């Protein structure tokens, strides 16, 4: 039951908040020059993709594909923005749905934004900024990230990370440079139920529930000299078991170089997963990278991407190391700045196995429309 003091505090807070709202110019239309801008505004945007995929092996050898990601933006003055992105995708005969993000952005100052809700984590660059199909210049995602990587010979290192929590973002612009820092606290990873404890399969459910009391902490530091150069480093850390005992860490370094029509970018990603065995607490370390080059010539843009993943199990001594690589060759044709036809061929190879057993190569073509 609330005490008298608590009730007084709530009343005082409510009164002050009401005063704040009444005092806000938000309740009046804003006049800017000769135009009146409404205080509330809604915009629907997003992107859709239709395509075709052919795999030399696997279950889904020859199929058409379709997906749409509507984005809803609700703005209150230039102070608050609520952003929602849904994903609808055909998986066999079922329409898979997902909530990529549902976040409230408080534009606190010109340099600081506070974010709450479910958001794409600023970890690396691909997940937060590049994965939409009309932005990603290759027809598939780099297979270090778990997004449409069925043909690749190794498990992805991480999914596209979206989680529930709070985040602060800050940017300063000394001279022509942009320096930004993003820091967040979220629910963190969970472990797939019923799996082998010696090789736990981590999941990032982005759920409103947490399997333990530990929260994942993370952040990204970004330095850029636009449009020529950008480099950033990211880190996440949290416990994944119900006892707050077993640790998961991942870090990423990403960079981009741009010179006229040439764009070169890449990301290195490493994950370290502590596990419990009868003999101790060894670490499973996995790491990998992708590097991509694109060259724009008129409406055409040839793209090449190389991806490699290494699996290392450290248990005092290295007991196992294998991995997989992918070479991707693509060509894009831009009908407009946000409508593109992409065709890509992936050469997928897995270490340690005969080539003729694992050559799950893939041809993917799609039209992506950012609207």
């Amino acid at each position, binding site marked *: 039951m609330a005490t008298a*003091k608590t009730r007084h505090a709530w009343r005082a807070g409510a009164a*002050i908040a009401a*005063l704040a709202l009444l*005092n806000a110019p938000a309740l009046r239309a804003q006049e800017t020059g000769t135009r009146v801008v409404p205080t509330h505004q809604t915009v629907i945007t997003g992107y859709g993709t239709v395509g075709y995929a052919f795999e030399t092996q696997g279950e889904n050898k020859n199929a058409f594909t379709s997906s749409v990601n509507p984005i809803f933006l609700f703005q209150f003055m230039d102070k608050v*923005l609520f952003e929602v992105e849904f994903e609808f995708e055909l998986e066999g005969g079922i329409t898979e749905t997902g909530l990529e993000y549902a976040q409230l952005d408080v534009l606190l100052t010109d340099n600081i934004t506070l974010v709450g809700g479910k958001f794409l984590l600023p970890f690396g660059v691909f997940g937060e900024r590049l994965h939409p199909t009309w*932005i990603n210049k290759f027809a598939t995602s780099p297979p270090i990230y778990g997004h449409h990587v069925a043909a690749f010979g190794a498990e992805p290192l991480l999914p596209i990370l979206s989680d529930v929590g709070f985040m602060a973002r800050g940017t300063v612009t000394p001279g022509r440079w942009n320096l930004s820092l993003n820091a967040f606290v979220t629910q963190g990873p969970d472990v797939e139920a019923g799996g082998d404890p010696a090789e736990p399969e981590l999941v990032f459910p982005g759920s409103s529930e947490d399997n333990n009391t530990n929260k994942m902490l993370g952040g990204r530091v970004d330095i850029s000299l636009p449009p020529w150069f950008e480099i950033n480093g990211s880190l996440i850390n949290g416990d994944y078991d119900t006892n707050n005992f077993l640790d998961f860490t991942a870090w990423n370094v990403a960079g981009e170089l741009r010179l006229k*029509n040439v764009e070169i970018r890449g990301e290195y990603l490493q994950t370290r997963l502590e596990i419990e065995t009868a003999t101790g607490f060894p670490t499973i370390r996995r790491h990998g990278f992708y590097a991509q080059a694109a060259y724009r010539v*008129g409406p055409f843009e040839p793209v090449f991407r190389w991806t490699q993943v290494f699996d290392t199990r450290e248990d005092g001594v290295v007991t196992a190391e294998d991995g997989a690589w992918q070479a991707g060759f693509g060509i894009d044709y831009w009908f407009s700045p946000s409508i593109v036809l992409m065709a890509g061929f992936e050469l997928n190879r897995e270490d340690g196995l005969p080539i003729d057993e694992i050559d799950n190569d893939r041809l993917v073509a799609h039209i992506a429309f950012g609207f």
Partner: protein
Amino acid sequence: MNRPTKIAAAVGIMAVAWLSATTTAYAQDAATDVARGAEVYGAMCGRCHTARSPLEYTDRQWVTITNHMRVRANLTGQQMRAVLAFLQATNTDPGRPSPLESGATTGVPTADYSGPVSTDPDVIARGNQLASENACLGCHVIGGVGGNVGPSLNGVVRRLGAADVRHKLANPMFNNSMSMMPNFGLTREQIDAITAYLASLER
């Protein structure tokens, strides 16, 4: 006051200060922001995706879209407002009647665009100023910088000829009915100056 009340009061005062701030600036100093906005648009937006045409959204929609991108791309509020000023300034109908062409949108020019290209330093300087004011860099590369919504303007006078460059500036849709280039409503004197400026970069 007890502790919760103090915290509530502090939060309330901060909220009052924040919400009452007079920095609401959808269009503050728009004229001076346009050139800066074009530069930021080409440099920052093009880092991740092809820069979109200003014509894809309405002026009001751009307000929300630019705030969305401010968060996603870690832009400052100042950068965002400059980009918005650029997008709104160039969000004009490419098919609107040209003052030189009496409403014609395609086909044969109805004005004479031939004639020598000026090498007068004052005219070239005027062209440079107009190119900056109209934010050509937001969509086109000039020299080593600029956006990629439209083609590079390096060598454009040599490639197309001065008459076609002038015609394009007067009527962006004359050679491409799908063109997204804004019609800036330029006068012949302004068109000649911009053409002279672009030609001067080729020498």
